């Protein structure tokens, strides 16, 4: 990727992060940590990878993205807003009673949301169904899903992984946001779902790893996914939970908490808004 494009994507990712903090701060609740850890990936997906048309969000020929870790809705909404699906200003209505921006993604009321999610594991399977339907129809549609690392403790994820591997769903690409933390603590302490590469290879997947905060690395991973034509691909995305906001980085306590006014100012400073 050339330097100019990298700079542009970094600026988009920065704005996505600002939107995440604005949304969670306005709602006084929500999940900033895991939203911030996928902000660069979302910037890459929505501005480089996905074949989509924000003016025609229901276009049948579009690529699909399922945010299986639905609690990171602030990240998804902020990316969709940046991409032009709805006004950035609306992020401040997140989780408010009259808003179309629900606490977890609601496909029926939010333009650009391809699947309702929030109950962990289900998006993994839904993405398989989308990929299967397109595969039997011979379309060029690609299907993407983003899973949390904690989410992979759900048995349904492995039901879906077995299904996709056996069905050779090469139009399917999952990304596991491997930030290492879940609500109750480090995933290694709670119920360690690793090692990932060995597990996914055993389930007949193509396995790629990337640095979640390096656009060259993200690009290489998604290109490797496209190049694989006989297996689904999983990208093990090594990320920093809370990335970009100093006091949130690598902190379990910012999984699902909102900053106060003082903390909000620090976050905005960290993100270059002050």
């Amino acid at each position, binding site marked *: 990727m050339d330097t100019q494009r990298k700079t542009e994507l970094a600026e988009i990712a920065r704005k996505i992060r600002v939107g995440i903090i604005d949304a969670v701060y306005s709602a006084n609740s929500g999940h900033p940590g895991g939203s911030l850890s996928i902000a660069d990936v979302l910037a890459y997906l929505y501005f480089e990878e996905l074949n989509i048309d924000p003016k025609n969000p229901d276009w*049948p020929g579009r690529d*699909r993205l399922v945010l299986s870790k639905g609690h990171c809705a602030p990240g998804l909404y902020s990316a969709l807003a940046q991409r032009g699906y709805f006004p950035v200003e609306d992020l401040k209505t997140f989780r408010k009673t009259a808003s179309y921006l629900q606490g977890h993604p*609601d*496909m*029926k009321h939010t333009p650009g949301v*391809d*699947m*309702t999610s*929030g*109950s962990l*594991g*289900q*998006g*993994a*399977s*839904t*993405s*398989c*169904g*989308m*990929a*299967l*339907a*397109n595969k*039997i*129809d011979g379309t060029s*549609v690609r*299907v993407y899903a983003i899973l949390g690392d904690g989410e992979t403790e759900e*048995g*349904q994820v492995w*039901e*879906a992984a*077995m*299904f996709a591997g056996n069905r050779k769903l090469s139009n399917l690409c999952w990304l596991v946001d491997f930030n290492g933390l879940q609500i109750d603590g480090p995933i290694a302490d709670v119920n360690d779902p690793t090692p990932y590469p060995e597990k996914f290879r055993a389930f007949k997947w193509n396995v790629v790893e990337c640095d979640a905060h390096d656009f060259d690395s993200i690009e290489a991973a998604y290109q490797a996914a496209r190049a694989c034509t006989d297996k689904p691909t999983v990208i093990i995305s090594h990320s920093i939970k809370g990335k970009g906001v100093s006091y949130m980085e690598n902190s379990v306590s910012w999984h699902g908490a909102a900053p106060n006014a003082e903390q909000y100012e620090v976050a905005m400073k960290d993100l270059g808004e002050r």
Partner: protein
Amino acid sequence: MADKIATREAYGKALAEFGAIYENLVVLDADLAAATKTATFKKAFPERHFDCGIAENNMICVATGMSLCGKIPFASTFAMFAAGRSFEQIRNSIGYPHNNVKIGATHAGITVGEDGATHQCCEDIALMRTIPGMTILNPADAVEARLAVKAAIEFEGPVYLRFGRMAVPVLFGDDYKFEIGKGVKMADGSDVALIATGIEVEQALGARELLAADGISASVVNISTIKPLDEALVVAEAAKCGAVVTCEEHTVIGGLGGAVCECLAEKKPTPVLRVGIQDEFGRSGPAKELLSYYHLDAAAIAEKAKAAIALK
């Protein structure tokens, strides 16, 4: 009366029949295709039948994903594992977004027979009723089962279809018209209304004959759409007869009995007694024997009807 045929048999045949017309119809199963009878569809359209293996939660959500990419999926397994195991998948991935997925649940109720309580799902209607926007169809015979499948295909939105394992008589002729949300009066009467669903419609008709021998006039109503309930018909029958007995092969909590009581309590308070599984688990045994054991047969309905009349 024609030969007996299980509604699951009619389900499999209907899928194959309508699969020829609807090219976007796909069928998913969870290693039970021979039992759910989706194997009939598989034989006709192997490229549109997807065996997901013993992983029902994944199957339900794979079906959901397919529905979002142009397909009309029927996901099939036993009622226990569809409504039971996968309740939350159905609630969150199908019900909440109102996705166009059809759940073909077979082996519902006590007449699963010898497999016993772990497989006798008598809670599925109650579970599905709690999901906003869910349509629940429980056909009484093979004719109605076929038409229910057709109606579900043509209906936009989630549908739970309930089929049985046991062979049952054919009650309807070829000219029978089926409409989602409409109950059907099978026989008129004035002393008590027997409001039945699924295989209990046959038993209610038998009860009507027993009651007639005692000089009691019973109407029989087939409620094959449990949700949305045909409230107008239920209220009209209750108003006319003044006593109601609900008949279902399902727990009396939250199923047809629950739905009718909720409706009548608000719109036409009437004595209602409920024939069904009385808040207990099933047991192994031949299906027909279990109908008597759990007081679901014609004789038990007739007794309940007399008790209901006494409450007037």
